[in-house]
């Protein structure tokens, strides 16, 4: 019995500490990225995965009872709410950005289609060029 308890403790501790490591990685990303939306991305990803791992570890330690169910509900709620709040924050950032051309390029759909078409054409022409080269070598 004691062995099973120890194994449960070790598994729970591993998951909890792994979640904390993910929080640390998230913090590195939040401090090292240069642009707000990059930082936000790191924060959102780290939050979701970190709380998932830590609370699953706590559920393992707690065992089969109502506390585990409530912890599971916290995880489920956070996994639904975190993308929604990230979306809202990114929309706020894009709306209130005074100089967007400094950070990213705005492109409408028509422009994008033209660019893709151009790239495709370029690719095919390069391919034919390569084939011609090979032919010449042969």
């Amino acid at each position: 019995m004691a062995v099973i308890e120890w194994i449960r403790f070790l598994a729970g501790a591993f998951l909890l500490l792994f979640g904390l490591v993910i929080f640390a990685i998230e913090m590195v990303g939040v401090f090292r990225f240069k642009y707000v939306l990059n930082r936000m991305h790191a924060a959102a990803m780290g939050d979701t995965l970190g709380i998932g791992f830590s609370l699953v570890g706590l559920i393992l330690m707690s065992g089969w009872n109502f506390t585990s169910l409530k912890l599971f509900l916290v995880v489920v709620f956070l996994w639904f709410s975190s993308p929604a709040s990230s979306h809202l924050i990114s929309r706020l950032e894009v709306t209130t950005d005074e100089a967007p051309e400094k950070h990213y390029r705005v492109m409408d759909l028509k422009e994008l289609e033209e660019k893709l078409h151009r790239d495709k054409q370029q690719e095919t022409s390069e391919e034919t060029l390569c084939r011609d080269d090979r032919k010449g070598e042969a």
Partner: protein
Amino acid sequence: MGRGVPGLEQAYHGLFVIALIFLAVMVVLCLIRAIIGPRVADRIVAVNMMGTMVMVIIGILALMLEEGYLVDICLIYAMISFLAVIVLTKVYMGVYLEKKEEERKNGGD
């Protein structure tokens, strides 16, 4: 936690204390990010991160003190932090757009 097995209770206690100290340091770092963050989105994200870490802290405390009802507080904390993000973004965006509209009107005259 881990009562009845020799050594396990101390192990649980040590693990929880280490995790709590680590999370406290993380929360302080989040606070620094919220203070230096040049844009409003940075600050809101930092507050959101702090909320997540406080949720883990509350979960650990619930297991450490063996008080199951603390997890209810964790659930409510998650909901309130989500609500705070929604309200802050909506209010800030509304204020910004209103200001823009005002400027546009004044510039047009």
